[in-house]
């Protein structure tokens, strides 16, 4: 396997990939080049044919998880006001912690060899379901790494392996993608050829301002009070209030054992806000109150077929910040 790191003259991106062969994908009805594929597959209402070269096709076990972090620099000013400055362009970090439990020696060797051959540097496509053989209505499934994420290009640096018994091994892989930005964030969950019902959910919840999806009853709630203090070795401490916005809450919301539809709603709600848009959430008793929050990280765990758990860390912000008029 070779990697071509030379700049593709005349284009901002190098639109040639080791895993996308123009020879394999030649002919009508196919995305003939990687350039055609990467643009067309997102916007075509009917997905054309395509085939990767040697994709990672092993399906992970339940218990695997996905983490999405929005990288920002948070600056806090007097009176509790803050600004979120996006750090860099590709500031959406997407990673998958994948468990391959109870695998045979044969499958384990294939997984280990596949990752080892890429030496922690070559990107590969994680595609459990190949496009050939799928009907037009199911074609979009070939673009999932794990449903509902249309994100397939990853690197992997380590291969921790546990030998449980004869012919029974468990491998844990951490797949990383740092290619996502505000420019392409929509394509994490949305492509044009997916079902209308799912697109409608995404469109509805990505624009919502009020979080109307109930998290589980168990919740971590940290209330901090900001004040001013003067402390000296020669005297007792002096405390006074610090103007406005003295109270701030950090919450860890968990949506336990949710189904596929609620998962898509939650992800649509939080991902498209990118950690820079705020939303309104009503915290119930004790001390019921409605406040403005932002979300900086999302954890999604696959529990069982159609059952997931999502945890989000949110923190209170003093002022509303919205890109979408509502």
């Amino acid at each position, binding site marked *: 396997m070779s990697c071509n790191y030379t700049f593709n003259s005349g284009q901002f991106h190098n639109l040639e990939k080791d895993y996308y062969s123009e020879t394999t994908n030649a002919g009508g009805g196919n995305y003939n080049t990687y350039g055609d594929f990467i643009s067309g597959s997102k916007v075509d209402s009917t997905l054309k044919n395509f085939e990767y070269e040697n994709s990672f096709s092993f399906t992970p076990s339940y218990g695997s998880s996905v983490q999405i972090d929005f990288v920002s620099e948070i600056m806090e000013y007097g009176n509790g006001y803050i600004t979120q400055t996006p750090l860099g362009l590709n500031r959406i970090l997407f990673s998958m912690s994948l468990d391959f439990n109870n695998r045979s020696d044969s499958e384990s060797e294939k997984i280990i060899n596949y990752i080892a051959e890429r030496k922690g540097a070559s990107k590969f496509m994680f595609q459990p379901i190949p496009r050939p053989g799928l009907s037009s209505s199911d074609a979009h499934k070939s673009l999932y790494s794990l449903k509902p994420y249309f994100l397939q290009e990853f690197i992997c640096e380590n291969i921790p392996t546990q030998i449980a018994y004869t012919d029974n091994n468990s491998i844990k892989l951490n797949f990383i993608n740092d290619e996502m930005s505000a420019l392409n964030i929509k394509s994490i969950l949305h492509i044009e050829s997916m079902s209308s019902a799912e697109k409608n959910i995404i469109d509805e919840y990505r624009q919502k301002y009020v979080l109307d999806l*109930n998290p589980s009853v168990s919740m971590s709630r940290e209330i901090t009070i900001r004040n001013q203090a003067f402390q000296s070795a020669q005297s007792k401490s002096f405390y006074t209030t610090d103007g406005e916005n003295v109270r701030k809450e950090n919450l860890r919301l968990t949506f336990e*054992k949710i189904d596929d539809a609620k998962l898509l709603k939650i992800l649509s709600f939080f991902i498209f806000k990118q950690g820079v848009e705020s939303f309104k959430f009503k915290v119930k008793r004790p001390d019921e109150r409605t406040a403005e929050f932002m979300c900086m990280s999302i954890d999604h765990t*696959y529990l069982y077929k159609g059952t997931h758990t999502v945890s989000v860390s949110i923190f209170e912000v003093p002022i509303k910040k919205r890109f979408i008029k509502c």
Partner: protein
Amino acid sequence: MSKYVKYNECEVKINEENIFALSASLSASSSSSANIVHGGIIESYSSAVESSTNISFQYYITGEIDNIRNLTGDISCSGEFGGIQFSGAYLTSYSVSIKPYLPVVFSASFNIFSGFNDTLSTGNFTSESLELANGAHTTLSNINSSNVGMDNPQEINYSIDCSRVPNYVIGQEFPQDVRFGSVVKNLSLKGENIGSLINFSGKDFAKIEIQPKTNNNVSRGQVIDCSGIINSQSLQVSKNGLVNGSVDLLERVR
């Protein structure tokens, strides 16, 4: 509509072979629990883990080969129980109970990993002649006082336990495959007139073979064998009684 089915005979089939079962049970559980959301409302019920289904039955052997015994390896089977059909079943426990002048009873338990249909129907076990193994006609090898400390066992219990580890992958209700784990044989002999106490150290080795037979000296099922260590023994005595005892053997096959 509810359907009530009465069974005069207990019909069980494994790999298309009728089994003369005494009793059978099938159980399935989903581990579902309530999802309680912020504010205390019960929003739904769901399970966070895979569902489990198992079937177990006691049976008599009516031929010289017990095909269920052959399922202790890395092999699955299909079957039918009262019209409920299942597949992707793996034997997890196989046992034999031998008592004098009583029919030898065999038991088997399976984990079902590929689901089942739920249509009940009636059926019956038919056979031209049923000649069962009798505990009093069991052929014993190497059971003597010098080997295991008793000459005439009153009760023999034998079991093979097979560990099965399913490999569930994301998006699937049933496992992609099932890993074959440990296989352990246990043989327990109970008897009286114990000669001498065995020098039990956990390292004493014994090899025992048992062949259940009918009153007419015809074999029923394969030879039951266990060659392993004596891992426990016990002695009991009461007033005016003989010393009773038991010896347990353990063989780790895999």
